């Protein structure tokens, strides 16, 4: 999707520091201070995790840390709610399959 560079009410996008994050092995740019979910959606990612039993995609839903649909593996830790976690330089983010913790590995059912 895209970032809103100019806005009739909010004005021009504020200059923010660009940082690098790694999503499923690929480098992408994010802005300091934004949530992981926002950075991902801005870069066209929408399926954040796949469910344990039926392997169905889930993504950003409630946006306030309540539904856990946006959980991903962040720096090796599964079940991180990306809508309430802000990006940090060099963060490693992976799609989560199932509970993301089988033998410490991300299972793909």
């Amino acid at each position, binding site marked *: 999707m895209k970032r809103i560079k100019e806005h009739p009410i909010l004005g021009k996008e504020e200059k923010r520091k660009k940082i690098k994050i790694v999503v499923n092995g690929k480098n992408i740019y994010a802005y300091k201070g934004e949530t992981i979910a*926002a950075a991902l959606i801005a870069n066209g990612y929408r399926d954040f995790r796949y469910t344990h039993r039926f392997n169905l995609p889930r993504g950003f839903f409630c946006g306030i840390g309540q539904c856990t649909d946006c959980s991903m593996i962040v720096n090796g830790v599964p079940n991180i709610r990306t809508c309430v976690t802000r990006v940090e330089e060099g963060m490693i983010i992976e799609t989560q399959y199932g509970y993301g913790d089988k033998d410490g590995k991300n299972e793909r059912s």
Partner: protein
Amino acid sequence: MERMREVELLVIGAGPAGLGAAIEASRYGVKVLLVDDKDKPGGQLFKQIHKFFGSKEHLAGTRGFDIGLHLLKEADSQGVEISLQTKVLGTMDKDVISLLVKEREMKLLKAKRIVLATGGIEKALSFPGWNLPGVMSAGAAQTLINIERVLPGERILMVGSGNVGLIISYQLLQAGADVVGIVEAGSSITGYLVHAGKVMRAGVPIYTSHTIKEARGGKSVEEVVITALDRRWNPIKGIEKTFSADTVCISVGLNPNGQLASLAGCEFKFFPELGGFLPLHDDNMESTKKGIYIAGDLSGIEEANSALDEGRLAGISVAASLGYIDSNRFAKLKEDYWDRLNKLRGGPFGHKRSIAKKKILLSSQQKEMRYQEIDCIELEENTKLKNYKSIPSLKEFQEFPGYPSLSRIKKGAVACIECIQEIPCDPCVAACPFKAININPYITDLPYLDENKCKGCGVCIASCPGQAIFVLNYNYSSEKAAISFPYEYLPYPKIGGKAVGVNRKGEPVAEVKIVKVDKRANFDKTAVITIACDKKYINQIRSIERIKDDA
């Protein structure tokens, strides 16, 4: 062991209700700790980039986030201590409160009084495909566009035509997305007509008696199917429409966020008009648990102004209960707040809420009753809310006191106020330098235009949060009339250029010429555009098609 910290007042939730409570209690000398689980204060306010309704005391006509800033300043000057990223987990026993700070650190706290202002929670809706990526709550989409400045998608279907659905649809358009439609299961638009008017002029269709049937797609939404409903909300077979869309926003109402109140043992009751189960309270905003007060969306889903006033009322009640305000003074202050709250709940939209609130007070079984059962019954009989399935016809608008007469229109520039529902709003009155607009005696009364006093100066246009005021100048030139209207989209049209003039439903009427784009600073980001068109369109054209290409 470290001694447990004890505060006089703990306020939970830093939205308008919590801020109001903290500010007022502090003003009278109470030591207040205000906590919120988010990393920024303001609750819902900072997502609200539109101009708010209300009266002067409520800063009506000011954008939500500016109201938020104003309240934060007030809290700061009153010396309110705010602790963010602090989630209240519950009350362990009578007065030990457990807090989780930054998701890691547990803290215990004692408080002499508590104000719960935990807001509301958006309702979900289940349909095939509801959990596909791309389906999200409308509030989540609003956070993305207005806080994160990222578009959730390019083609969006909104489910629900309440004020939240209408406002967020409008904001999605402002952010640059297309809204393919708004579906509403009920037979008429449930939000304010002026909000519906904004999106309809922008060409967004509102499908009443329709709901979403399915969202389809592989990894995320690609297509949506909507279906018509009969009067019992059963799908009518065969009346379906399929749209290509990448996002579905759900806006089907909020429930009071009562977790903490229920853990604390407050008594709840079901009030559908106010969003569902909610804690009972008396006319001091005290719940059935002594020392625990509630305010805002938690005590019934309403809007920011009433949340703020309920919060302020809870704040002074706490101050009085701790001996900071004497009883005479308190009685007077309390009357003022009830007066304000009752005015906000006046008019047909506030009517059901008003009755429900009265029932809450009744069931809290206070000795000193503010209302008698009989009042509620009388009120119920007076309910009269005119609902609209779509934008009313010109003829209907002309029947209202804001529409100038034909003879006045022919005399030259005059305001045309298309605000025909009794909503709690009045900034247009103060905006007019010639006192040509009146709303009397209640804030929920309709605006009345004194067409002989009106000079057609157009100052009122940008002041109206409903974007319902236009200026019609029949005598712009010998062949052309000019029409001025509010406009909040980018890019702005160019003076001298051509545009497509549209009617109240966003349907193209005729090619028009842009003669003025007024962006003066005190219009606060609402541009006022003036177009010239054939005189015969004076009662039809109300906006222009949004300009898609930045070229």
